[in-house]
């Protein structure tokens, strides 16, 4: 942590709402000189050590991982922008990436520099005061890639003097943080068989941890760890166990070979137990259970992996033998409350799960959106799918639909309100079988789905959930369902976007909207907060641009 960082952290910890003590003019000048020295010194670039990542709460001016810290809370300790002044927020700058399609990135900010990604595997570094680019990296992607669900990227990891990116052609790339120059570039898998990376990696110790995408192509999922210095692969955990491994018996015949279970969203890390918590996605084919009888481990599960070895300590499967594309890839948020070490996840299948972090044991599973697929729970308390929920040839309606009650949009947990905030939708889909043979690199769904007209209008919400009870404390209904993630801050605020292009600040306690700004672009990203020169900013990607907001 830099000297400047420490000073700023202290200032913010004091709280923006309190009056600052009067200082003499000479004192002020002295502070200014010191500040200038530290400010320029900062641009000589401080290394982002693993220690800094573990103790990221000490430097709230920086946003150093996809979710802001290792716990996945997406909570900012900054409180200069707060419930008393949020209505004064203004746009400070806009950076147009020039990319088209869905912009899903969460930027990182370290010591005044923002690092982010855009579609088609573009990465860039900006002066976080002004939004002016310092470098731009554009990967030359093969013309024959066909990634599912858009040519998207959710962001970078940073460690030492490098930033790390997964690419659409299934490579992991290390870029020099000062120049964007490629330091190393390794292929994790063959993109022609449907492998790709869209996830923001997680840097842990000296490793870059990353999960593969490709559940729609029948890949065999995995989570990899690469040496941050060299790019050498240190471990791989296959999310579908091979012959002789425990869990292999949960697959029929050879179905495990194309079993899916991708790992396309960023997990979390517990430095105390040295465990990585990484969620997995749907079994393949995504919407057809025929031919893969069994639970299909470890699809739609949360995995606890030893960070050094990649060995699995425990797993919890949310949806067994999934036939509705309900990837469990939502961020597993570490919550410590009442002496308990928990993980909370608002799952795509419509239930909010709380697990014991040490054992993976289920503590509670409560409905937080419209569901029709389950009306019973097993002995452990896990919701069990009704037989009638399976897709049929003529098609029938199941809630939630294939897009889920929530999806990749990042949630937030605010330790001040002890509430979990998540973007949710009530949409039911008609699921109709459409068997497809496996063919390498081809779509492998096994069923069709589309929104059920009878279930209109499709409603979208921001929901505040009490993780202890699963109760929805408040909800804000959007005009239509959105893909925006959510941020909470120490200023008593929750930020999120909507499908109509608004960026909105809410009172975290009541859900009352306090401020909004029309960005004119769809929101598929999650907000983050940072500070430079003692000023707090809140940033979000929308349309083809990154927006930064602050007080006038």
């Amino acid at each position, binding site marked *: 942590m830099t000297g400047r960082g420490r000073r700023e952290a202290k200032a913010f910890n004091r709280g923006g709402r309190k009056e600052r003590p009067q200082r003499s003019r000479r004192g002020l000048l002295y502070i200014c000189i010191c500040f200038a020295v530290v400010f320029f010194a900062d641009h000589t670039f401080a290394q982002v050590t693993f220690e800094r990542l573990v103790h990221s709460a000490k430097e709230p001016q920086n946003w150093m991982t996809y979710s802001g810290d290792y716990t996945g809370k997406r909570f900012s300790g900054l409180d200069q922008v707060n419930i008393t002044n949020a209505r004064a927020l203004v746009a400070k700058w806009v950076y147009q990436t020039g990319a088209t399609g869905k912009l899903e990135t969460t930027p990182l900010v370290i010591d005044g520099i923002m690092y982010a990604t855009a579609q088609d595997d573009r990465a860039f570094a900006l002066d976080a005061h002004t939004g002016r680019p310092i470098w731009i990296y554009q990967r030359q992607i093969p013309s024959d890639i*066909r990634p599912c669900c858009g040519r998207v990227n959710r962001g970078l990891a940073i460690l030492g003097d490098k930033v790390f990116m997964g690419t659409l052609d299934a490579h992991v790339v290390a870029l020099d943080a000062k120049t964007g120059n490629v330091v190393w570039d390794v292929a994790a898998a063959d993109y022609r068989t449907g492998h790709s990376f869209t996830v923001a990696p997680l840097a842990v110790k000296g490793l870059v941890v990353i999960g593969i995408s490709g559940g729609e192509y029948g890949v065999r999922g995995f989570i990899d760890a690469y040496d941050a210095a060299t790019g050498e692969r240190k471990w791989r955990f296959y999310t579908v166990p091979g012959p002789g491994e425990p869990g292999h018996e949960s697959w029929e015949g050879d179905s495990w070979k194309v079993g899916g279970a991708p790992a396309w969203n960023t997990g979390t890390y517990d430095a105390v137990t040295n465990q990585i918590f990484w969620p997995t996605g749907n079994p393949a084919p995504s919407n057809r259970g025929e031919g893969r009888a069994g639970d299909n481990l470890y699809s739609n599960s949360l995995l606890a992996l030893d960070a050094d070895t990649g060995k699995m300590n425990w797993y919890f499967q949310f949806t067994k033998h999934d036939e509705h594309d309900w990837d469990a890839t939502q961020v597993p948020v570490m919550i410590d409350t009442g002496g308990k070490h928990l993980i909370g996840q608002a799952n795509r299948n419509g239930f909010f799960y709380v697990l014991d972090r040490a054992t993976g044991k289920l503590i509670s599973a409560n409905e937080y959106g419209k569901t029709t697929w389950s009306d019973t729970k097993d002995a452990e308390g896990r919701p069990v799918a009704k037989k009638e929920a399976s897709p049929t040839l003529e098609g029938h309606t199941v809630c939630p639909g294939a897009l889920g009650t929530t999806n990749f949009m990042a949630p937030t947990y605010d330790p001040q309100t002890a509430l979990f905030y998540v973007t949710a939708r009530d949409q039911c889909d008609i699921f109709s079988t459409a068997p497809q043979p496996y063919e390498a690199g081809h779509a492998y*769904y096994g069923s069709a789905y589309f929104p059920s007209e009878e279930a209109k209008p499709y409603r979208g919400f921001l929901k505040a959930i009490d993780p202890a009870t699963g109760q929805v404390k408040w909800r804000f209904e959007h005009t239509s369902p959105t893909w925006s993630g959510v941020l909470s801050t120490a200023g008593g605020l929750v930020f999120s976007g909507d*499908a109509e292009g608004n960026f909105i600040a809410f009172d975290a306690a009541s859900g009352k909207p306090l401020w909004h700004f029309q960005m004119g*672009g769809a929101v598929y990203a999650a907000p983050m907060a940072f500070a430079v020169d003692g000023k707090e900013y809140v940033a979000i990607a929308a349309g083809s641009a990154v927006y930064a907001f602050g007080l006038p």
Partner: protein
Amino acid sequence: MFQKQIKLVVSQLAAVITTLTILMLFCVSAAFAADDLNPLAGDAKAAKLGEFQFRINCALCHGLGARGGGRGPDLTRAVKKHTHSDTDMFQVISNGIPGTAMPANGTNGQGVGMTEEEIWQIVTYIRSQEVKAPAQATGNADHGKELFYGDANCSTCHMVEGKGGRLGPELTSVGGSRTHEAIIDSVRNPSRRLAWGLTEATKEFPQEYESVTVMTADRKEIKGVTLNEDSFSVQIMDASEGIHLLQKNKLLSFQKSRQSAMPKYGVDILSDKDLEDIVAYLVSVGAK
């Protein structure tokens, strides 16, 4: 000598270019010739695979059996507005139709795009369905036009080819893009499936023709249809085609309804035969 060599090189180059040009022309014409052929035409197995591809990629708008889903046209009709040959159909599936809701292959951002082979499978499937499609009912288009602009009062709210009202959806192309059943249903049960209005790049779903009633701060009631809406503002057209641009937090009340502003036309108001005539008119315009 040097110049002579250059001349020689130039003449050789010219010969090579001429040959290449001829070769290219030949290749291009050969390619065009090949383009007219669906490599899977008439292949029953390909049609079956195409049916599944269709369900996954097309049924959202065109219905499970390609008979239209209320948004996309009925593809079992032998005569299609945008596609005549198999090649046309391949192009439309690959590239979409600009200015319509038909997207290019793989661009809706939700799923995986199709390979060329899979697109040909879908073309083959659609062709196989055409054979089975029942004959379309035909009404009297001229009489339908009279009714549209006369006794049936359709043109009070709907415009066709530049003539008519603005409150309801413009209907010039509806006969070419909606199924016969969907048009009948929207007249008989206008609230069952609200028509789509404005489509925005930012939104997953288009604005629907919802009814809205608001009370302004000066206690003025406005009733109309929603042109657009977000969490903080609403844009309304009232029955006299007046546009109201309103901030929601300044309204005393704001009520939306999925009861269509269009009256329900039962058989007591519009006979089945007269409705068939109006549909025939819309189809005659929409097929142009």
